[in-house]
């Protein structure tokens, strides 16, 4: 019976999903009340996840492992969900009658991703992944008056289904080679089999499923359209919380090889370089800020992969730290987007004009977040890049690091364009005033402090991410 305490965060989100399921059955919808419920429940969920960080153990015939690595990512996912729900106060992007369903799917998706980061058995992993994907497939076309954006929902589903087909094919190879579906067993057997192409192919195909979630080149094609087509809050969720689970799983599966496969490393190097370069170059010409952030997320998937492909403890730790930093910075950007476009339309860069007068606090949050994404000190984004590159140089990947840094310079160009819009441009026409309520104000200040504090005093967080990856097999 004690064992079930290990499952507390997941059980909590099951309960949360149930609450909103009941809510969705009601004829009359009160969005304000749903919002208050959602904030309260997500807040408690975060507290529960944090409280369960130190738990350790196995569940369900050892197919489910609770350790610091999984719990750390569960906290990140819970934090992302909490953030997203906080900015749902003006949920104009989604038909008011579907608000309860929206929160329901959000809770289910969070639950699924939490299960994903703990799953250490191939079928469990696959089921958890599909559960989270299907919730997202449903959330994307929920956008209010979605006719124009129906395409993005279909596109997301098609590409996602293809990626998951590739993944299950890869999983079958892995099973065929190693005769086991348990990750712990596999990590023992697989390194000896890596000289056989089938093992590498199986692994790469499996990774493809997670690369799709991470929007790594060439599995990125859904990202710009879906980011643009989904409601702002849904995009925020896809861009923050769902990236965390994918990063965790890439780390877990790459870790299976224990650095034995030269071919895999080379492939990952190529993917990371392509992803960074492609994402950054295409982002330059974007006009829609969500599309811009989509391409920047493709680039960031590349940076994160640099840390992972080192296949050292320090490399994984740097990727974990980077994921955490990315969650906070990216959310800060999206929060500003949501608040400025509070009727839920797609924000163009030029609509940010004069933001420093309309809302100095949001402008500052945006500037710091973008500088963070560009990797400028003293923000936490810089520390993230620094750790990733340090790990890569320990393995001697000098050229890769130089390419990464050049990419960071390119990315600064388009981030500066956005900052320029917020701080320099005068609005060409009267834009509606930005309403910043007390909660947003507090959230902005917390984010600003977090971005700077973690950037200047990274010691404890580096130690935490190192402890998290130390438990990996």
């Amino acid at each position: 019976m004690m064992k079930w305490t290990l499952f507390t965060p997941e059980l909590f989100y099951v309960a949360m999903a149930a609450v909103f399921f009941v809510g969705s059955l009601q004829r009359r919808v009160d969005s304000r009340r749903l919002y208050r419920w959602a904030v309260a429940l997500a807040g408690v969920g975060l507290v529960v996840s944090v409280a369960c960080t130190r738990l350790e153990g196995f569940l369900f015939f050892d197919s489910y492992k609770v350790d610091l690595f999984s719990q750390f990512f569960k906290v990140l996912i819970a934090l992302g969900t909490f953030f997203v729900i906080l900015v749902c106060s003006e949920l104009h992007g989604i038909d008011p009658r579907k608000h309860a369903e929206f929160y329901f799917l959000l809770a289910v998706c969070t639950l699924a991703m939490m299960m994903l980061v703990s799953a250490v058995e191939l079928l469990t992993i696959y089921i958890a992944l599909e559960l989270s994907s299907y919730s997202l497939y449903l959330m994307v076309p929920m956008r209010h008056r979605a006719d124009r954006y129906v395409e993005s929902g279909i596109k997301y589903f098609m590409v996602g289904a293809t990626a998951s087909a590739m993944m299950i094919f890869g999983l079958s190879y892995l099973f065929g080679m190693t005769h086991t579906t348990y990750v712990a067993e596999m990590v023992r057997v697989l390194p000896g089999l890596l000289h056989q192409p089938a093992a590498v192919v199986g692994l790469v195909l499996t990774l493809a499923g997670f690369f799709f979630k991470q929007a790594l080149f060439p599995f990125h094609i859904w990202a710009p359209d879906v980011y643009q087509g989904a409601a702002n809050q849904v995009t925020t969720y896809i861009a923050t919380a769902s990236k965390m689970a994918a990063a965790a799983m890439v780390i877990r599966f790459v870790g299976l090889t224990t650095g034995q496969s030269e071919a895999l490393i080379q492939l990952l190097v190529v993917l990371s370089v392509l992803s960074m370069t492609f994402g950054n170059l295409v982002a330059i010409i974007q006009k829609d800020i969500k599309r811009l952030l989509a391409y920047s997320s493709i680039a960031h998937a590349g940076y994160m992969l640099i840390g992972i492909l080192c296949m050292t403890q320090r490399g994984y730790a740097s990727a974990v730290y980077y994921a955490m930093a990315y969650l906070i910075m990216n959310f800060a950007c999206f929060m500003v987007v949501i608040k400025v476009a509070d009727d839920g339309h797609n924000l163009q860069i030029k609509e940010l004009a004069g933001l420093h007068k309309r809302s100095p606090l949001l402008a500052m949050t945006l500037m710091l977040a973008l500088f963070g994404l560009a990797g400028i000190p003293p923000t936490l984004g810089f520390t993230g890049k620094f750790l990733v590159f340090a790990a890569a140089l320990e393995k001697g990947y000098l050229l890769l690091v130089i390419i990464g840094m050049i990419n960071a310079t390119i990315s600064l160009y388009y981030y500066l364009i956005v900052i320029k819009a917020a701080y320099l441009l005068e609005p060409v026409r009267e834009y509606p005033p930005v309403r910043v309520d007390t909660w947003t104000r507090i959230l902005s200040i917390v984010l600003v402090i977090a971005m700077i504090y973690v950037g200047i005093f990274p010691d404890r967080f580096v130690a935490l991410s190192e402890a998290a990856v130390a438990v990996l097999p």
Partner: protein
Amino acid sequence: MLMTAMEFAQFPVLSAILFSTILALLVILFIPDDRPKLIKQVSLGFAAVGLVLCLYVYFAYDTQKGGLQFVERFLWVKSLGIYHFLAVDGINVPMLFLTAVVLFTGVLTMWELEKRVKEYFALTYLLVAGVYGVFMSMDLFFIFVWYDVSLFPMYPLIAIWGSTRKEYGAMKLTLYLLAGSALILPGILYLWAVAGGNTFDLFELQRIGFDVHVQRIAFLMLYLGFGILAGVWPFHTWSPVGHVAAPTAVSMIHAGVLMKLGAYGILRVGMTLCPDGLVYWADLMALLATVGIVYGAFVGLAQTDLKYVIGYSSVSHMGIVGLGLATMTVDGINGAVFQMFSHGVMTALFFSAVGYIYDKTHTKMIPDLGGLSKTMPKASAFFIIAAFCGIGVPCMSSFWAELLVFISAVKTYPIRGILAVSGLVVSALFMLRVVQKTFYGEKNPKWEHIPDVPLFLASPRIILVGILVFFGLFPRLILDVIQSAVIPFVNSL
């Protein structure tokens, strides 16, 4: 051991300097927008505090003992070996003094600013925090962090308060400099990784003594990376464009102090950690520096915009710094560091003088001006003094600096040295031509009504002139300090 304990017990002057700027930044952020006067007074107050502390460091630094003084060191990030390590030696001390002077005079120069005052001074303090940080950190991680912190405020500073093609200039400058740091970071991390990945402490790394092969690669990356900021030809093109676009005090800080960060970085990081790399690349350094000196002078000859003239003369003068460093002799490096200091003060004076003229006439095109010495003799005098200093007239501090560099350059690299000296003649020609056309000659009646610069607004320029002449008359006072660090450094090469 007792010694270090005593040093720790002292008042942490360096931290006080560094954090006074951050405190200034925070204080300014909390002053309401509608009190610009108060913001300026607070800025000036903090700048004065910094100046006093830097002067204290300058005079309290024991040149007999030499080495690192005012040491503050504690662990920052354990798993990577990052230290919060502040210290100064004979090279840093004049640089800190220079920063404080330029900041103080820069705040005074911008006294009449009206547009978005609060943001301007807040960003200036952020920029200066970065500069101080680089000049006193002895840990590679923090050198890089502060270096980047000093770069990115340049973008808003130029793009918001600038003039001629400001957005283009700001973007070009920011991207160039950040491209430079894209080489520095891999260089630093490379050395760190080769050394075993557990310390960023500059001197611990120095003791390791890297492999020649490693040094060559790392030195090239560090030299090019820092060199972009030092205006090394052919990576200098951001500098005239950026200086022209920037508002007066930002040009002062940027050309006066920030470009020195580049040269300082080459010296402190590149040359300290990779002496063998320096030996290997010194030829290239000397060549690029000489080309820079001659090229800057010739291009300067063709300019019609006063600020472009100064911009190209900076390229030329920073070439002298590069040439001095490349000689690897005591005199050469002494001269280079002295030149960094006097060029900083001189350029600040240049931009400050042009700033007043531009504020009043709204033009900085040489053909539009003319005969200014009759309408505003005092304002003109400042520019003319700076021009003399640029030419290297005796009794000006840059005379000594250039003399030292050229003597050792001619000894080490005869042909390049002589070419560089002849470049100086061209630069004298273009300076005198500018002075002649702008301040003498036909008087433009349009500017007759303009009042001469009042005493308060002239004060920053008076301070700068005073420093130039003072160190021109008593070069020993600064050379002793510089030498206390350079002699052991050259001996260790």
